[in-house]
């Protein structure tokens, strides 16, 4: 094939509009007649509302409506439990608008609709809210103690979920072990913090009973189905669109109260209603993740081969548990990392607290699990007296062991964990070369002589990606432009999906990637699919596009064979043309085939006229469209993966610690990433580098700080410290391609990977930098103050 676009660093189709200010984010959609929403949100973490009087707000000039839960009628509901599981004794989800009890600072209590957001905020100040504070649950360990106050007064305790899982015989492993130790590790709460906040614009056409919703969601089809069923509107009359999304990171997968209330208000008012969350609201109203405390016991041989692990951890789920146990379960399944670990048990308790609800944020439990297992490996290396590289090599799953069955532990897709492929030793070799591992001791010594403390850290991870159940794609050769039209049920959240999927289609159809128009985030373009999350878009949607594109290719060749009066086997497809092999002058363009494939040939342009000069696309004696055939050159394809495919990676960094101030600088960073067959290496590198920056944020800058009463202490970009360019180091990236045997294209997911190993390797690098002191980092993120305290507390060796 002359056009090879798959695997190439093709520049992105979406860039030009985004660079020239012509993107269409939800707040960019022109709606001159729209009214605007502001929410009264709970100022208390846990309280009983004793008075809520909105009458003055309703009278304020410019206010269109003010709603409390009593106004919602049959729609005064709790949001759905997205992923149920029997291990949740009393699963709690949020009401659209609070009743008499609020459970976190930021919970929606009342909704103001006004002629402008300015006026809506004015009206918020006129709402009278009185409440009796109740004890707030914030500390996840204290929450589990006997007699602890409860997050929800109508629940007997704070246990949101409890699950024990076991693989092999861990107790026997501990009996046989030469080396046994235990450790406690923790990671703090953070959040995705996309640069675009969430937003919803809804427009209801009462005459036609059609609801159109522009929503920053990563899951438009979920919203479509939910709104249709809630409001009794036919599925095909609810259209959810999101032309461009300013970053997702998981936060935008969740189903939020405003996503129901704004369309509901648009139906009530018969006017477009817009809600654009502001940044403060995003900090207190959109979901968080990461807080976990792990207590792990390790059993190993004297050679450093891990025989067994016993991990018990507490997971903070916030005030509600809408996403079930997804995060904790992902952490549990990824705890053994790329290592054999034949015996292990994991027991977790998800704990309710009076804080913002917790749902997956890029990484989804993996940064925590990676931190635990990689810290364990570092400790084990010290215990048995080998270096950090060797200890890992002794425990890696080897290439000949794949597919590697973890045993009786289920992944987020509900299927037993089976790691399909990987080359962990080779991956590590490449990493060590990239970070100049061999030369580092000399570099460290030199720096130390100058009074500087350099350290190097490594960490590796595996990531189950590409979860089912399925995705679909509709591929069509457009009869008017000849371009390839690809529609998927997914949204692009900025990761370059429009280009990556274009490359997949272009490869099958012999065209350039920029001649493929990919539409994402429009439920009318492709009404079937799941959503963009869990590093699944390229894997599942990519293969679905390939299936559909291949069918279009075969159809095109069949039609062209008739048109050119040649045998299909004698035809080639390249550069948008189908020609007879050896006689390229005998050709038709894909556009001409598309025109000819429709018995009604529009004859308005040269191609249409040309198409009529060929023999018909179909050779039928009877009707021109025989039974079983369809007009148009198009196909719909689906792909459903057998189970998750496992990507992997290894990262390393050199850091410098200022022992006088506790400041940390990332000196350089290297990453080797294996996401199977790469569709576009430029896009994958971008994904990894962005993830690393988030990981750096989660290692030394970002944490969601709460005080003892459940008040947020840093709900702004002034105090929640997303790193700037000045905090993120230069990175060197290398690709390793171990194609997944599970799908035709060999693709594994890449979206979340970058952030996973950063806290683990940062901890490792700090330990190394402070090797003169007896320091072990066990809690992430750090900051200069906490690192300085650790340095000061260390007994100098």
């Amino acid at each position, binding site marked *: 094939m002359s056009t090879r676009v798959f695997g190439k660093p093709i520049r992105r189709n979406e860039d030009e509009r985004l660079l020239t200010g012509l993107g269409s984010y939800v707040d960019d959609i022109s709606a001159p007649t729209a009214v605007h929403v502001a929410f009264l949100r709970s100022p208390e973490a846990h309280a009983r509302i004793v008075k809520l009087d909105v009458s003055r707000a309703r009278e304020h000039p410019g206010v269109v409506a003010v709603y409390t839960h009593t106004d919602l009628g049959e729609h005064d509901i709790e949001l759905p439990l997205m992923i149920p599981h029997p291990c949740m004794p009393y699963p709690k989800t949020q009401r659209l608008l609070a009743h008499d009890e609020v459970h976190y600072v930021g919970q929606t209590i009342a909704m103001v609709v006004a002629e402008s*957001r*300015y006026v809506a*905020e*004015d009206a918020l*100040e006129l709402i009278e809210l009185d409440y009796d504070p109740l004890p707030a649950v914030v500390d996840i360990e204290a929450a589990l103690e006997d007699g602890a106050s409860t997050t929800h007064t109508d629940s007997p305790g704070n246990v949101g979920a409890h699950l024990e899982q076991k693989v092999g015989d861990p107790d026997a492993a501990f009996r046989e072990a030469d080396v046994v130790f235990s450790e406690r590790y923790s990671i703090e709460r953070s959040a995705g913090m996309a640069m675009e906040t969430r937003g919803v614009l809804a427009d209801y056409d009462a005459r036609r009973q059609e609801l159109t919703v522009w929503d920053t969601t990563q899951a438009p089809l979920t919203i479509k189905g939910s709104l249709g069923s809630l409001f009794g509107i036919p599925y095909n009359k609810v259209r959810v669109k999101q032309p461009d999304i300013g970053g997702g990171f998981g936060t935008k997968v969740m189903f939020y109260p405003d996503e129901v209330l704004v369309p509901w208000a648009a139906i009530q008012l018969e006017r477009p209603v817009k809600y654009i969350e*502001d*940044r*403060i609201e995003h900090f207190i109203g959109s979901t968080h993740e990461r807080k976990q405390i792990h207590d792990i016991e390790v059993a190993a041989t004297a050679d450093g081969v891990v025989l067994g692990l016993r991990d018990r951890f507490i997971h903070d789920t916030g005030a509600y548990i809408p996403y079930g146990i997804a995060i904790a379960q992902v952490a549990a399944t990824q705890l053994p990392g790329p290592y054999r670990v034949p015996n292990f048990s994991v027991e977790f308790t998800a704990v309710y607290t009076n804080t913002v609800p917790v749902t997956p944020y890029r990484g989804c439990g993996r940064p925590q699990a990676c931190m635990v297992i990689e810290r364990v490996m570092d400790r084990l290396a010290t215990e048995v007296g080998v270096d950090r590289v060797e200890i890992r090599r002794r425990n890696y799953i080897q290439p000949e062991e794949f597919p590697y069955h973890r045993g009786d532990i289920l992944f987020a897709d509900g299927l037993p964990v089976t790691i399909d492929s990987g080359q962990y030793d080779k991956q590590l070799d490449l990493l060590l070369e990239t970070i100049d591992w061999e030369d580092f001791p000399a570099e460290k010594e030199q720096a130390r002589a100058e009074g500087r403390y350099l350290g190097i850290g490594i960490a590796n991870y595996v990531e189950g990606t590409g979860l089912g159940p399925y995705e679909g794609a509709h591929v069509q050769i457009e009869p008017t432009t000849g371009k390839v039209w690809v529609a998927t049920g997914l949204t692009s959240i900025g990761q370059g999906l429009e280009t990556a999927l274009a490359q997949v289609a272009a490869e099958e159809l012999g065209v350039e990637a920029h001649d493929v128009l990919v539409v994402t985030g429009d439920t009318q373009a492709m009404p079937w699919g799941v959503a963009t999350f869990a590093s699944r878009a390229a894997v599942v949607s990519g293969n679905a596009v390939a299936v559909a594109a291949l069918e279009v290719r075969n159809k095109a060749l069949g039609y062209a064979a008739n048109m050119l009066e040649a045998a299909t086997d004698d035809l080639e497809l390249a550069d948008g043309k189908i020609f007879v092999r050896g006689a390229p002058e005998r050709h038709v363009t894909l556009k001409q085939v598309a025109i000819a494939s429709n018995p009604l040939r529009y004859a308005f342009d040269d191609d249409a006229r040309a198409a009529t000069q060929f023999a018909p696309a179909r050779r039928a004696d009877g009707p021109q469209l025989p039974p079983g055939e369809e007009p148009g050159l198009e196909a719909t394809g689906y792909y459903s993966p057998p189970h998750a495919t496992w990507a992997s990676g290894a990262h390393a960094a050199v850091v410098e610690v200022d022992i*006088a*101030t*506790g*400041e940390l600088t990332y000196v350089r960073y290297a990453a080797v990433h294996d996401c199977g067959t790469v569709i576009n290496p430029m896009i994958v590198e971008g994904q990894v580098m962005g993830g690393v920056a988030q990981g750096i944020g989660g290692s030394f*800058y970002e944490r969601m*700080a709460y005080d003892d009463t459940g008040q947020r*202490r*840093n709900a*702004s970009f*002034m*105090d929640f*410290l997303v*790193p*700037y360019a*000045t*905090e993120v180091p230069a990175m060197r990236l290398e690709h390793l391609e171990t194609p997944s045997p599970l799908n035709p294209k060999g693709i594994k997911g890449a979206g979340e990977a970058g952030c996973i190993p950063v806290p683990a390797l940062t901890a490792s690098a700090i330990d190394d930098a402070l090797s003169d002191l007896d320091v072990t980092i066990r809690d992430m993120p750090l*900051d*200069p*103050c906490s690192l*300085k*305290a650790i340095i000061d507390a260390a007994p100098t060796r």
Partner: protein
Amino acid sequence: MKPAPFEYHAPETLDEALRLKSELGPEASVLAGGQSLVPMLNMRLASPEALIDLRKLDELRYINVADDAVAVGAMTTHRALERSDAAYSACPLIREALGLVAHAVVRNRGTIGGSVAHADPAAELPSVLVALGGKVKVRSLRGEREIAAADLFTFHFTTSLEPDELLTEISFPALEQGAGSAFLEISRRHGDYALAGAACVVSNGNTRLAFTGVGPIPVFVEGDDPDAAAAATSPSDDIHATADYRRQLVRVLTSRAVGLARERAQVSG
């Protein structure tokens, strides 16, 4: 995050501005560059009844460099002063500190007068002014007076200006021949308010230090003893650092800033 309504005044002259200030008193906030005020308005942490916008007062935009001082009109932007080579020659401490004030885009709008009058103890310029022993001019309908930097800052976000007074000029003493200066700070991210910062001037064997972020006002210390400097401060705990840690930073910054200023003094002297 939209500001509450306010009356808006944009006086054409300083006299008109003074009249408004006199009439409206504490009900009105003065809008200079707005880089500190507007975020507070957007978050509705401040809801003044009126704003007096000084943007039309070109008479307050100047940088006069004399032998003994750099006199800066209050509406001069950080960037204008940062770019002034003459100001840099006379008093290098200014540019060094300004480079640490937020980010370039903020400095394009932020004004010297606004920063000083805002009296944020975590800001860089007040410490620079105190370390240098500078002074400001303030005006009201009642007349003009000078306030020494040492008397200007009275508490968090509070100065000794009367409600009817406007800050019109900031005067930074020029660095003497053979003297050296340094501004160092430790912040969480580049451009953030410092966890602690130090402005240092070494001249004729005297060492003058003023610290940011470790008390309700810039903390002035004479001498180069890190422990004495730390003892003079009164930092508090916040989400970014403890008071003890900030005292430790004061010790480190004292050594480093004094060392650097002395090094520079030797080079120039």
